[in-house]
């Protein structure tokens, strides 16, 4: 019954999805023909006319101190977010609207536009160099993390509740949407990579990571406030996730795992003494694994966003030369961005899956028991 119902409704859902994805993207871009790139007052007029797709795309990908939604005429519509700074033994709290969209300084702090700290809050020293305070601001991405965390917690608490209710019966509603994924992760990913004996210990972490990445990937594709932040395409976010996997592997690893790293069996002794070549290689391997996890997720999601933004930018690039060319291009661009959005939906799942799978494999390697050690391990 449920399947039939879903099938019947699916065209409507696809339509709504397409509508959200395209119209949303359009809205975000609608006012980008006069980009924020114009900072110098002198040639503001000239700069405003010029559309710089590279800058616009990067601006959409990186973190920000305010949540820019649109620009109508000359007024920016954005949600100001709190700035929290610790500098010279003093805390500073204020809203990011004090920066007037990055154009003005406040209390000596301003958003850097050049150099290494571009886009970060800095303070200028007397010698002209910029110094970065400890910056714990609730940035756009931090805010988005809170939103998506709240969404995830709410969704899963409700699912857990419905599991308590349905018990042995077939899943209903959201439950039936999530259950195949849970079963897939449990049976195909975690159980097969870690093994029947240990998988239960790591299942909660891996399921959490999977759904956290997957839902954030999907939310990153919805270009309407408060979604659409490029969360999983941010190194800080993927880095923390990779670090969690690293810690799980390190603390979950058994005697064999550590023995393998510091005293690799089956290797001639002169590779370990006096210069510990093998241990160094193993430790580098230990670190590269989560590092690769971090970069893979970041790069994949960022690339997807760049391509979609690039397609939409085409409209405005063409529109600059000729308005009709812009209209004409919009048809093609939208078609391409729709295609990319669907591809990204797929990538959203695949990357979450890959991250979880690789994490499981690393954990599985760390808890693996060698046949001859079996007796020692089983207490």
């Amino acid at each position, binding site marked *: 019954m449920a399947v039939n119902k879903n099938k019947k409704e699916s065209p409507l859902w696809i339509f709504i999805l397409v509508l959200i994805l395209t119209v949303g993207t359009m809205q975000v871009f609608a006012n980008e023909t006069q980009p924020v790139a114009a900072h110098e007052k002198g040639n503001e007029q000239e700069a405003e006319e010029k559309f710089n797709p590279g800058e616009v795309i*990067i601006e959409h*990908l*990186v*973190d920000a101190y305010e949540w820019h939604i649109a620009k109508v005429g000359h007024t920016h519509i954005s949600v100001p977010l709190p700035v*929290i700074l610790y500098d010279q033994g003093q805390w500073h709290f204020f809203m990011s609207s004090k920066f007037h969209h990055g154009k003005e300084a406040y209390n000596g702090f301003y958003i850097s536009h050049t150099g*290494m*700290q*571009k*886009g*970060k809050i800095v303070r200028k020293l007397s010698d002209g160099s910029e110094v970065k305070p*400890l*910056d*714990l*601001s*609730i*940035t756009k*991405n*931090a805010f988005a*993390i*809170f939103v998506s*965390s709240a969404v*995830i*917690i709410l969704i*899963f*608490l409700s*699912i*857990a509740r419905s*599991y*308590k209710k*349905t*018990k*042995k*019966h077939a899943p209903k509603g959201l439950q039936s949407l999530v*259950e195949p994924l*849970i*079963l897939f992760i*449990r049976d195909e990913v975690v159980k097969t990579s870690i093994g029947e004996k240990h998988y239960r210990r790591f*299942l*909660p*972490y891996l*399921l*959490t990571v999977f*759904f*956290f990445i997957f839902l954030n990937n999907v939310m990153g594709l919805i270009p309407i406030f408060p979604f659409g932040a490029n969360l999983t395409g*941010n*190194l*800080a*976010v993927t*880095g*923390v*996730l990779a670090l*969690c996997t690293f810690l799980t592997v390190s603390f979950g690893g058994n005697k064999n795992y550590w023995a393998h790293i510091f005293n690799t069996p089956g290797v001639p002794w002169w590779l370990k003494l006096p210069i510990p070549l093998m241990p160094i290689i193993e430790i580098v391997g230990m670190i590269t694994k989560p590092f690769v996890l971090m970069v893979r997720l970041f790069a994949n999601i*960022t690339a997807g966003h760049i391509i979609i933004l690039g397609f939409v930018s085409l409209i405005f690039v063409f529109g600059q030369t000729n308005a009709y060319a812009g209209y004409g291009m919009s048809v093609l661009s939208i078609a391409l961005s729709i295609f990319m959005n669907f591809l990204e939906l797929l990538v959203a799942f695949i990357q979450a899956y890959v991250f979880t799978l690789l994490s499981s494999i690393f954990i599985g390697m760390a808890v693996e028991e060698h046949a001859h050690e079996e007796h020692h391990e089983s207490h």
Partner: protein
Amino acid sequence: MELINPGIGLIFWMTLAFGIVFFILKKFVWPPIMQALNDRERHIEEALQAADIAHEEMKKLKLDNEQLLKDAKEERDAIMAEARKIREKMLDEARVKANLEADRIVESAKERINHERLAAMTEIKNQIAEISIEVAERILREKLSAPKSQQEYIERLLDKKQLN
């Protein structure tokens, strides 16, 4: 550069938020879901097994039923055959009995007839004798003149009668 320059603040908030998400999911979400999934899987497994067993039993029952039916049929046939045999036997016996009875009746009837006949003969003889005596008396009364020749004559007549 901006793209690969992670902010300390974001790392901090991400760690905090992910930690909270993980804690809540681990504490309140995954245990009941896993429990429910395991329970359901076990339930389904058991139900399938039970269905299998029931199926087997049904098969056995059906076989038993068929056997029972077959047995019943055989028994019925046997009983029918027996009954038929008994009927035949009874009929035969009855026939034999009836014949015997009939013979007996006929026999006794014959005997009685014979008996009756003998009795009647005796009666007749006696009557004849009486009548004869009476006749003889009358004759004697009327003809006392020649009683001797008369007596002899009568006796001769009587003897002739007895021969019949």
